[in-house]
């Protein structure tokens, strides 16, 4: 009798443990939301929540791509400057007008150019890292410094206004069924990426390359191509982030656009449970990760915490979230 009972108990415990292991990031997430709701009742208002989703979309888009790079054992420190560069291309194309005042370049084409520029930077990163066999940390840092410098040079450091037309600004500021369009875009991409990562061969190879590069190579996987592809993915995502960001303001600031976004994105990915050593990770974790970061920023304002102290709170929440993550094993 007793043995049977304790077995049933054990099974329940195992089940709980299983849930915790697979969904700990979600549990932490719900916990944080609960704490926030108690601390600041206005936090749970729909407009506030939607606002958080809108604000985190840019970093969120980058975090999605960053997840691939990190799982494959890499890192991308160039995202912020690349966002500025691609954004500058978008704004410069988009603001060109014909003599009669109509846009000279169709908006869609300008966006495609923006995505292409960002993806090319990813390609560049990937090529240098794989062909010259240099560490990703330093390569992407250097490429980032160079990209920022280039955009500053070509724009003389200034903030340039785009053509403030509704079709354009709607991308970043609009809503569909009151859900912010940028968040819908991010969710859409996230779903595609989730399938890519878990259901396709490419996804498995990304894990393999991050887990054991040699074994992947001996199994016939084109390690370099997979690597390069992950950097192109984060590039594409950065281009998407650039489109959202530019469209929200219809302007690009050469010096500040996207600054520090790479760290926000990496933090989101790690908070989401993906390991920097490569070979394992989950996209859903990254999504929760960037939303947690957005909530933290929002709560500083909600609770009117001294701007000096906001860093303390933020650091503590990051540590707490990662700590909860790690307990899984």
């Amino acid at each position, binding site marked *: 009798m007793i043995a049977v009972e304790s077995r049933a108990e054990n099974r329940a415990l195992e089940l709980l443990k299983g849930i915790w292991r697979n969904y700990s990031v979600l549990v932490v997430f719900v916990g944080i939301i609960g704490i926030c709701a108690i601390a600041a009742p206005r936090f749970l208002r729909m407009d506030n929540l939607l606002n958080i989703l809108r604000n985190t979309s840019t970093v969120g888009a980058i975090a999605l791509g960053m997840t691939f790079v990190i799982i494959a054992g890499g890192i991308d420190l160039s995202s912020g400057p690349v966002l500025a560069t691609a954004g500058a291309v978008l704004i410069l194309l988009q603001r060109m007008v014909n003599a009669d005042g109509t846009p000279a370049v169709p908006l869609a084409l300008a966006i495609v150019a923006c995505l292409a520029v960002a993806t090319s930077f990813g390609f560049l990163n990937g090529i240098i890292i794989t062909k010259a066999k240099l560490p990703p940390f330093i390569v992407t840092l250097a490429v980032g410094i160079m990209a920022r410098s280039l955009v500053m040079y070509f724009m003389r450091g200034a903030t340039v206004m785009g053509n403030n037309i509704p079709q354009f600004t709607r991308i970043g500021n609009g809503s569909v069924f009151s859900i912010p369009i940028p968040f819908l875009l991010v969710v859409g991409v996230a779903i595609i990426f989730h399938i890519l990562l878990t259901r396709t061969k490419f996804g*498995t190879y990304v894990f393999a390359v991050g887990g054991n590069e040699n074994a*992947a190579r001996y199994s016939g996987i084109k390690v370099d191509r997979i690597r390069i592809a992950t950097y192109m993915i984060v590039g594409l995502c950065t281009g998407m982030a650039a489109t959202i960001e530019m469209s929200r303001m219809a302007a690009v600031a050469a010096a500040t656009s996207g600054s520090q976004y790479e760290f926000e994105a990496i933090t989101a990915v790690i908070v989401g449970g993906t390991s920097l050593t490569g*070979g394992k990770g989950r996209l859903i974790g990254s999504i929760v990760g960037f939303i947690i970061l957005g909530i933290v920023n929002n709560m500083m304002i909600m609770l009117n915490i001294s701007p000096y102290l906001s860093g303390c709170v933020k650091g503590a929440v990051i540590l707490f979230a990662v700590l909860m993550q790690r307990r899984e094993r």
Partner: protein
Amino acid sequence: MSNAAVLQMKGICKSFFGVEVLHNVDFGVDKGEIMGLCGENGAGKSTLMKILSGIHAQDAGEVIFKGSVIRRNATPLEMQRVGVSMIHQELILLNELTIAQNIFLCREPRGAAGLINFNRMNEDAARILSKLGEKIDPKRKVRDLKIAQKQMVEIAKAIAFNVELLVMDEPTSALTGKETKILFDLISSLSAQGIAVVYISHRLKEIIDVCHKVTVLRDGHFVATKNVADVTAHEIATLMVGREVKESKASDFPGDPNAVVLEVRGVSDDLLKDVGFKVRRGEILGFSGLIGAGRTELMEVVFGIRKPRTGSVFIEGKPVTIRSAIDAIRVDLGFVTEDRKETGLVLCRDIVDNANYVSWLKNPGMFKGAKATMENTRRIIDRLAIRCSSPAQNVSNLSGGNQQKVALSKWLLSGAKVLVLDEPTRGVDVGARQEIYQIIRELAAEGVAIVIVSSDLPEILSICERVIVMHEGRITGTLNASELSEAKVMYYATDV
């Protein structure tokens, strides 16, 4: 027990993540005794010894060493201090440190001002190595060593200090006859000095040759301890597996000698000198030789991992260019590498992934096809009798032998026409080894050409229909199964 007992382990239990891998195991060794420890892959041999050497803590039971109870959470250093030293199954050397630094890690001789006395350390290291018949410069980095040399360094490290109990977990799996002989002489002399030795091996002949007693584990349970004089290798195998194990000897290749699938011609590089060979449909071809003879290197050239200076490869008579593994896979070559940890498996991924990488590459389409993948995986787990809790188990948690089977499974699922197996049974137990041999024979019967590189002579003798022997990058002899003997192979391998 006799009062000469150095070690007694009583009622040891241990679980990982709720799975019990040791169940109430008793184990003891006397002073100067050489105790063999046998069991199938995953039986719990390494785990038991890791508990002894302070790496794992047991869940229940006690360890008594030299009459005193060892505290449950003793550290590796504490166990070393009381005189327990262990050679681990997986090499755990530090590649960026020198040989001497590795041997003396944590016990560096101090000189002036508390700094390390490098001169003494290097001299001592050289002395210990020469005792093992190695003349490598102890100032070299371990990174530059070959796997057998690394194994010797690992052994040197274990015997460098006053030990009273030495645990050797499959020390010979990377060694050939010459080094093995040196090692056995060493073990005997240690034993004569009163040092107890626990010797784990899947090569039962070695157990018979060197041990006084043997303890057999099965599935985490203690089965028996026997005097070696009272048992045969065959009986040990039966105890381990719990049923009869049949061994067999190969005969000459019976198939069509003209149906050459793979031909390699004139491969030369820094080590290899104009090497070539042919293998036919359904043939099992062996490569034997001493360590560093260049067999692995030759196979890496064939598989496109390494660029030779000259050389060409023909598949079914047609010349092919193989520049990378994927090219080799396209012409239906398969290659089970000798180092499963480094080049064979992605340890942090599960069995499903590791078993399917190549077949995914070969099949068209972007998606993995969850159902087909799962079926394949289950089929291969059954066929190779891979011991695991589920196909979704991480490969890193499998025992060495089971890992080897997973490494093999990748190529079985991809349908290779030529399968190169480099040390295919390194660390695999007798039962599983016979299973693997059986699988190899079945594959050959299906028409797959098999190339086996092995440093294990009995293995070569029992399965290969033809053997090529290499010495220092050259082919020195080719023998058919009917003319095969250990002496002949050694004759060509040493090129006297």
